[in-house]
């Protein structure tokens, strides 16, 4: 009885070993990434990204946007007021 059991074990042993090895290799592999997960805590410093260029870029953008808008508005206003003066002058000339 015991001999028969040993024979069976000897026959299936290679298959069990192969199965265990394959399972171990598959389990050790990291799963394929099926999506990106944003950080939720203070893991942000992992890359040690320098802050100064980001702060400089933010301040520069604010100044450029503000000065740019003032300049754009001023140009539009000057153009419209000049046109208004011309049209008003034409109207007054016609009245005379």
């Amino acid at each position: 009885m015991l001999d028969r059991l040993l024979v069976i074990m000897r026959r299936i042993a290679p298959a069990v070993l192969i199965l265990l090895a394959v399972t171990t290799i598959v389990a050790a592999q990291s799963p394929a990434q099926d999506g990106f997960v944003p950080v939720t805590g203070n893991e942000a410093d992992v890359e040690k990204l320098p802050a100064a260029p980001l702060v400089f870029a933010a301040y520069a953008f604010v100044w450029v946007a503000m000065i740019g808008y003032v300049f754009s508005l001023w140009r539009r206003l000057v153009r419209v007021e000049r046109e208004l003066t011309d049209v008003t002058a034409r109207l007054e000339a016609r009245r005379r």
Partner: protein
Amino acid sequence: MRSTATRLVPILLGLSAVMFAAAPYVIDTAPYEATMGLVQRIFYFHFPAAMLMLVASVVCGVASALYLWRRRPGADHVAVAAAELAVVLGAIVLVTGPLWARKSWNVWWVWEARITSTFVMWMVFNAYVLLRRFGGVGSEVLSAAVGVFGMALVPFIYWSVNMWRTLHPLTTVVPKLPVDMGRVLLWCVIAFLFWCLALLILRVRLESARRELDEAYLMVED
């Protein structure tokens, strides 16, 4: 003949320019934030722009509602001016925010409640400005409805961080600011406020000049 408001523009712009020029030195006096460090200093420009963007949206919404009710051109001019300001301030918020987030959250952008709703509101005011630019005759009424809709998003944006757990700091951050940080923030808020007031007055003047020009052309054609 220039109005008193128009005469205030150079004063407001001058004060704002001086305050913005001094802002880096004033900000430098504020203490570093414990977890975020240097990058937290983006907050001193990001928060005033966000706050005034919401104020500009409310001004646009109220002026639009007044225009829909009474059809007064003055209300429409204020609505246009405030909508354009909301677009400029929104662009500042949506650019400085990701620059800050890249360092403190390790991401440029997260589709969470506060950021997404701010982006949606910015798109609504872009739609308002585009409608006014290309909508032709009658676009004042359509854009006024858009302005009221844009204003309706303001409470949702403000309370979004308290209603949902998000990465964005809560509304309790500013009231709880230490004095050293609070006075620096106040400096930047006032600088932004002067700039916004000056630009609002100028933009209203532009819109009323355009209306006068349209009327003058009609008289020339007659």
